[in-house]
């Protein structure tokens, strides 16, 4: 009884901040306001599937997938290093890794904008060394860089938490039975870390596919992503119906990808989100 009572604030919280907004978004997406009053319509959803908006969806997914893949490739070894019990000063390393996250996300993205400028520190250093300029600010590469930089911890931390809980004996047993380092990784360590990998992928993919700040600041608004499109419907064009329909399609997309992912996630080994 007491336990239930404690959960009320959360129930209220969820009703006010999740359920009600969600219902409103669904409502706006299926009605249109005409002179004759409010009518049910699917026109907003029809508009979402026009070719020009499909391009935007595909670009968002492409950039998010690339960033997620880069995060996985960079993050997995990082998580293994952090999880290595033999490592001295491991805690310091973890703290160093997490410190950038204490800073505001926007401030960090602005910092990249300044770093990558034509007259910024990176380009100046390169030209002093006689190397050709990078020239990546305001390109897709800068957007991917921004995503990877901002979301990498979301990949590393779940994998790290799963890896650091892996039973040492299992790995030792594999070694005793003559497994090469490659086989050990492929048959033992990686499969055991899969729950962490999957929640890492979800945690990077979701913010990457919905971001609008990174593409605006580092992409110079030249690469409209789905987040930018939704933002503009609500603040610029005032087409709340279309904006809501876009949001719902995006939500379904994320739900779908999460569903697919969770089919592969057999059991939650602490790294799972749900």
């Amino acid at each position: 009884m007491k336990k239930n009572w404690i959960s009320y604030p959360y129930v209220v919280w969820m009703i006010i901040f999740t359920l009600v907004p969600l219902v409103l978004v669904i409502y706006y997406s299926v009605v249109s306001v005409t002179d004759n009053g409010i009518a049910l319509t699917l026109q907003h959803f029809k508009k979402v599937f026009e070719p020009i908006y499909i391009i935007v969806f595909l670009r968002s997914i492409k950039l998010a997938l690339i960033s997620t893949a880069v995060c996985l490739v960079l993050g997995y070894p990082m998580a293994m290093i952090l999880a290595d019990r033999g490592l001295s000063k491991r805690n310091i390393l973890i703290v160093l890794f997490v410190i950038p996250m204490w800073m505001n996300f926007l401030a960090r993205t602005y910092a990249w904008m300044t770093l990558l400028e034509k007259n910024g520190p990176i380009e100046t250093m390169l030209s002093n060394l006689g190397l050709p300029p990078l020239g990546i600010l305001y390109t897709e590469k800068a957007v991917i860089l921004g995503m990877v930089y901002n979301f990498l911890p979301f990949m590393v931390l779940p994998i790290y938490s799963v890896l650091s809980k892996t039973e040492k004996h299992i790995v030792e047993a594999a070694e005793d039975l003559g497994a090469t380092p490659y086989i050990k990784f492929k048959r033992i360590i990686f499969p055991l870390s899969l729950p962490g990998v999957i929640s890492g992928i979800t945690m990077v993919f979701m913010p990457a596919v919905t971001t609008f700040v990174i593409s605006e600041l580092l992409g110079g608004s030249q690469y409209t992503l789905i987040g930018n499109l939704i933002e503009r419907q609500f603040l610029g064009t005032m087409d709340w119906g279309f904006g809501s329909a876009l949001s719902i399609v995006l939500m379904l997309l994320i739900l779908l990808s999460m569903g697919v992912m969770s089919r592969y996630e057999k059991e939650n080994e602490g790294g799972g989100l749900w």
Partner: protein
Amino acid sequence: MKKVCCFVVFLIISAASVFLMSGCSESYKATIKVYNWGDYIDKDVLESFTTEHNIKVIYSEFATNEDMYAKLKAGGEDYDVVIPSDYMIKRMINDDILYKIDLNNIPNYKLIDDRFKNLAYDRENEYSVPYMWGTVGLLYNKKMVDDVVDSWSILWNEKYKKQILMLDSQRDSIGITLKMLGHSLNSKDEAQLEEAKEMLMDQKPLVLAYVGDAVKDKMIGGEAALAVVWSGDAIYMKRENPDLEYVIPKEGSNIWFDAMVIPKTSKNKKEAELFIDYMCRTDIALKNAEFIGFSTPHTEVKSQLPVELTSDKTVYPGVDDLSNSEVFEDLSDTLSIYDRIWTEIKAK
């Protein structure tokens, strides 16, 4: 049952705390809420208003017209005076969310130059009182551009590839393109809009970025050679980097206005009018004009400002420079075509 009771008690407590917080007692005659652009007033003016009239001013700021509109439409805040731009005022008039201002309560209104009255966004002068005005133009770095800059067409010059900054604003970017093509920047003609779209599509490979406020840092830092900017920002940038120069292209441009309006959420219309009148008073308008550095619509104030400011064509262009410039009008339904064009350009 007990569960339900607990739930209800919880709701009552949370609701009560919200009301208690807002119910502080005051000794002021009234309180008005003013909603304005960031950095767009000399704050001493607010204090002196409170001292003079014993009316408290709650002052808050917005970053874009669209943010302001979204907040106002969402309800919840009962602002008394808001200072949006022209096309947004027109939209608010069309939405019927503004009070008509009683000009009898605003005697200082007569101090405003007649050329800033009866403009497209408020033809009958019923809803708004001008606060500041300015233009949209080309800012260029004299060290990086060796051509004569007097036309929008320089933004299509291959020579400046990846050195051009455009405004990330559909109205302004499409508007100046229409101007360059010799059309009105309020065009609702689909063929003309299509033509502008093709031009902007062709231009995209030359553009370094579509930016908002970032344009200031970029131009001051010499990151780009040419940019489309608002005159108010141009004044600031020229001060920070003397290599920069501002021109209003010969094809004409956009003249914009920020004006004071009273939304229908206001519960203190009389006090709001008093505040607007106060803002039009010469000494107060002078303070604001000096602080902000934008162009004032107030004849007397202009003559009292330092000559180096009023002689600067960036701030006070001559009437001839503006002969073919236009004010934005609300596009109502055509806005969705603009949005579509802008999406197509940026999605390419």
